[in-house]
């Protein structure tokens, strides 16, 4: 379970990004975080991956308080949270196979495990035939699938998707959404940040709405309100 308790994030000098955030996300839930640009959605995700630190409050994942996480523990945390970005963030000089394998290599996985696991994951996301291509040689939708494959390689308990469909057309958006739902069905907690109204409404899952850094709505089977 992820708990955000009385979270406040202020960027110097006085920009309040998040204020009084209290959220509990249960294991296996699919939660969409919506809101207009600049309402603090991405900041919330960055606090979870320790890219940013809270100004006040406490974040826990299970029993692990990550609020004051030590720098040396950050890689350990990031290996347990899969992250998907709008701009893909694939390494351009590595093939798709190498990009996915890289997440395993950094934590010292053996070559045998890499050779076994990466093709399996690529098959799950439908990229089995494109393992040796470089990111610029495949479409945007395929790049996002590659990112999903990389984020799943550690079999994380939590998957965070920050505007994963922002750069995709409607067909690819639907495919990515279906993939996220499928991943959630396997028991992974999914946090989806988006302002794609159609997508959010079609999911029929929990929706948390942020406005000016504050949670204004939290619905079990929600809709995009704004």
């Amino acid at each position, binding site marked *: 379970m992820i708990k955000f308790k009385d979270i406040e994030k202020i960027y110097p000098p006085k920009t309040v990004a998040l204020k009084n955030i209290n959220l509990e996300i249960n294991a296996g839930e699919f939660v969409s975080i919506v809101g207009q640009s600049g309402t603090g959605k991405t900041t919330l995700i960055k606090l979870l991956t320790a890219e940013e630190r809270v100004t006040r409050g406490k974040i826990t994942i299970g029993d692990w308080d990550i609020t004051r996480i030590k720098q040396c523990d950050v890689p350990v945390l*990031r290996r347990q949270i899969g992250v998907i970005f709008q701009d893909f963030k694939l390494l351009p000089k590595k093939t798709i196979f190498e990009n996915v394998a890289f*997440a395993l290599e950094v934590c010292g996985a053996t070559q045998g495990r890499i050779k076994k696991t990466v093709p399996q994951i690529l098959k799950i996301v439908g990229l089995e035939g494109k393992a040796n291509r470089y990111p610029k040689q495949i479409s945007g939708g395929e790049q996002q699938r590659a990112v999903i494959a990389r984020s799943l390689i550690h079999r994380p308990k939590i998957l965070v998707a920050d505007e994963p469909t922002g750069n995709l057309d409607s067909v690819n958006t639907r495919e990515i959404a279906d993939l996220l739902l499928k991943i959630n069905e396997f028991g992974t907690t999914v946090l989806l940040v988006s302002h794609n109204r159609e997508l959010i409404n079609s999911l029929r899952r929990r929706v948390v709405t942020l406005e000016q850094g504050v949670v204004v709505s939290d619905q079990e089977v929600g809709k995009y309100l704004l």
Partner: protein
Amino acid sequence: MFIALFRIVKFSLQDFLRNFLFSVATIIILILTLISINFLLTLNFITKVALGEVRDKIDVSIYFKQDIPESQIGNIKSYLLSMTEVKDVFYVSPEDALEKFKETHKDDPAILESLVEVGNNPLGATLVVKARDTKDYENILKVFDDQKYDAIILEKNFEDHQAVIEKVTEIAEKGEKTALGIAGIFAIVAVLIIFNTVRIAIYTHRDEIGIMKLVGATNWFIRLPYLASGIIYGFLAVIISVIITYPIIGFIEPYMTGLFGGTSLNILSFFTRNYLFIFGGQFLGVVVLTIVVSSLAVGRYLKI
């Protein structure tokens, strides 16, 4: 541990090959810098040889009056040899001095006739003194300012050489200072070039470093391939600069030997004798520099 080391080397080599043009450009800059340093070393070596040659040709002669016993001159020679400033002392007997005089003036019949008129050998013995340093001549000859030598010494030719000695000393000192100055400028330029090259290399990788951090790479796992790249760059640059430097020196050495009137300079053997110090030092320098610079540059992007 072995897996991590293998991957660091693998990433480093992969990065080298996939950014081939950039890697080549970096290595070319390093090679040019190292060749410049080698050129400077050669210049410094030639200057030292040249000054050594000039210094070697300088000596002072102490002319003794006639009929001074050889044993007395021998005592003075021994005393001079005991001085730390003195490198060597040669005794020239009156007979040898006469022979040398005749040889020098063999084309001057008037002088040779006057020698015949004088009859016996008018020349006394001479001590030729070589100092370890040109600056030492003044101190050595001060010994003979003592009045006790007035009765036995006819002349000491320090005054004749003083101007030359001072000039050579001045040239030597200026030469060394200039060489040091140029070496300093080269070193600063080299450091700046390497600093900027590595910084640009890492700047182009800043997004990649960010991604590595986000997928859970530790800071060391990110840093080490750059450090390994520094070692690869340094190794290749030194090897190639050696391959280029040796033939160039081999080509210019005969011309330089000609300039020095046939005196063999042995520039190649100077490099070969000191290869560990010169090329090892250059390798170490490049590696340490790239490691320091890359650590500083990577550090900026590791704060994610």
